């Protein structure tokens, strides 16, 4: 498997000179061709920043961003522009970003105009082929964004993102505005794309349920740090970080095979402003100990391809007891 996109020790701060907040801290992440990496986390965890950093829409303060093995951390905007056909993105709310004056046909054609040297007939043919892949309905190519519902608009957003046959595709909460049926359809399409297009896909979602059907691996983000990352099946069966456990218990309440009760987290979802020394999750962690408030945990390798950033994981005591 060839790694397409990679972050190495990436830290990102956002804001002006007057007020800087750490949005991402020492992120290590890899995603390979033919793979879907899911990223889960609450709002404010840094998901969107992570998406934008992968595409170098954001300049990290530390670390390295790689695309197909090339360091693009310090590339000037002019150079990056030429790569933008190879790494693409969809946004949370497609209706807010699609140009309302363009038809779906024109919207799908635009990336090709920007990045592919095609003759007009070739471009038209490419758009038709794309429409077919997206399973667009007859006549839909002539509509404008205002005439589409959120699901169809997100599909157009996806079409724009894959028009140039990118190597890396990042989807920022693509299903959050969609109803269940549209969301399922969208994810199914995504899975078929992974198998046919040989690209690396990063799928960002609010909760694990939205990722679980299609993601090969899942990374859990909390306060700008990856607290746990591993194969989807492992994570669902046996989440090791207390935060992942809480996320799962909150989102899979109706699963009869899961014993126990929901783990309720104390406190509000944090913002990067209330960072404390020590483990970022300590203020809300049900099994936090005193040492958690002084020493920050580093990611621990578990098995062959899992990592968990919790001080208690190596002793095997990071599972939240079911009865308290």
């Amino acid at each position, binding site marked *: 498997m060839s790694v397409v996109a990679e972050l190495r020790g990436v830290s990102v701060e956002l804001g002006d*000179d007057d007020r800087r907040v750490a949005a991402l801290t020492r992120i290590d992440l890899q995603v390979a061709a033919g793979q879907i990496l899911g990223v889960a986390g609450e709002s404010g965890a840094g998901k969107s920043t992570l998406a*934008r950093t992968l*595409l170098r*829409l954001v300049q990290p303060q530390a670390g390295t961003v790689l695309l197909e093995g090339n360091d693009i951390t310090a590339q000037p*905007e*002019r150079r*990056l*522009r*030429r*790569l*933008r*056909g190879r790494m*693409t*993105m969809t*946004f*949370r*709310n497609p209706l*807010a*970003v699609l140009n309302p*004056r363009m038809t779906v046909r024109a919207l799908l054609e*635009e*990336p090709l105009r*920007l*990045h592919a040297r095609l003759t007009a007939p070739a471009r038209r043919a490419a758009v038709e082929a794309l429409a077919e892949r997206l399973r667009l309905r007859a006549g839909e190519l002539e509509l404008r964004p205002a005439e589409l519902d959120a699901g169809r608009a997100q599909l157009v957003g996806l079409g*724009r993102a894959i028009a140039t046959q990118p190597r890396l595709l990042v989807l920022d909460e693509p299903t959050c505005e969609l109803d269940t049926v549209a969301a399922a359809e969208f994810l199914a399409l995504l899975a078929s794309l992974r198998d046919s297009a040989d690209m690396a896909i990063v799928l960002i979602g609010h909760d694990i349920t939205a990722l679980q059907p299609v993601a090969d691996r899942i990374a859990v983000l909390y306060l700008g740090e990856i607290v746990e990352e591993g194969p989807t099946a492992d994570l669902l069966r046996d989440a090791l970080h207390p935060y992942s456990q809480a996320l799962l218990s909150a989102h899979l309440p109706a699963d009869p095979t899961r014993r126990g009760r929901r783990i309720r987290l104390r406190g509000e979802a944090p913002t990067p402003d209330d960072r404390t020394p020590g483990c970022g999750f300590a203020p809300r962690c049900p099994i936090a100990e005193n040492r958690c408030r002084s020493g920050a945990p580093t990611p621990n390798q578990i098995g062959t391809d899992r990592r968990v950033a919790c001080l208690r994981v190596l002793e095997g005591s990071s599972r939240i007891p079911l009865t308290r």
Partner: protein
Amino acid sequence: MERPGRTILRLLGIAAFVFLVIAFICFMLIKLGAAPPVVLLGGPNPMPEERAQLIAEYGLNQPAVVQFIRYVVRTLAGEFGRSWQTGATVADDLLARLPATLELMVYALLLGALIGIPAGVAAAFSRGRAEERTARGAGLVGAAMPSFLLALLLLLVFFRWLDLSPAPSGRLSVVLTPPPTITGSYFIDAILMQDAAAARSALGQLILPVLTLALLIAAQLTLQVRTAILMQLDTAHFAYARAQGMSRDMLTGIAMRGAAPSIWAAFCGQCAALLGTTAVIEYVFAWGGVGQYGLEAMSRGDFAVMQAFILLSAALSLLVHLMHAGVRRVARLRIRRA
């Protein structure tokens, strides 16, 4: 849904109200003034017949309410009384001086926008880099600089030290005769009359005062435009355009389009605030415009002129508001139709 013209009507209503309030304040200034009304309106030593005439004209021996109504009616008819300094009617004085002021303001606004808007855009686009800090620092210094100080500094450098600009002695070299009034701008009129010497002199006289005003405008515009564009850069819409790999020019266009209402508002704000600054600059450069006329009246207590000047400033900001609302209205209609 807003009905067409509603905003304009509302603004006109506000205008009428503002006019009454200002008229009332002006009126009270005279009634409660430090000196008797006859002195405020007729100068320190009015002759007995002048005195009688003023009392009759303003109805100074009538009840206050009647005086106020008379005052409002006269003002609405464009009668602002006489200046005891020049002896002419204030209306005539204002009309004679208006072209000089307009000339200064129009050039300054154009030049200020030409510098300030691109500088603000460039500053926003170079966020976090040295260019931004430079533009922002220059903007802050310029925005905090008192207008007369900047004028004096420029005079010191370009007139005293470098001897590049003429003395601050009005709109034209004293040895030349002004061109006949066509547009009111000496420079343009001289060109139209093909009077090269007058045109050159008029231009030379214009440069420093226009530059002073333009720099002050540009400084504030830079800061305002920078903020407006920065807000656009943070929208999902803009991030999407960048992710698409659009060229720098396309991105600038997108940000400018999004920021256009704020930039337009900032520009209008500069227009509205301009008369006050222009007055100071006119004073420093002996420009002989409306602003200088108003300032001198204030310092000497020529009340008829002061009142007219206050009303003129109010009228100007109102006009700017109408311009602002009108353009926004048209722009919004265009967007809806597209």
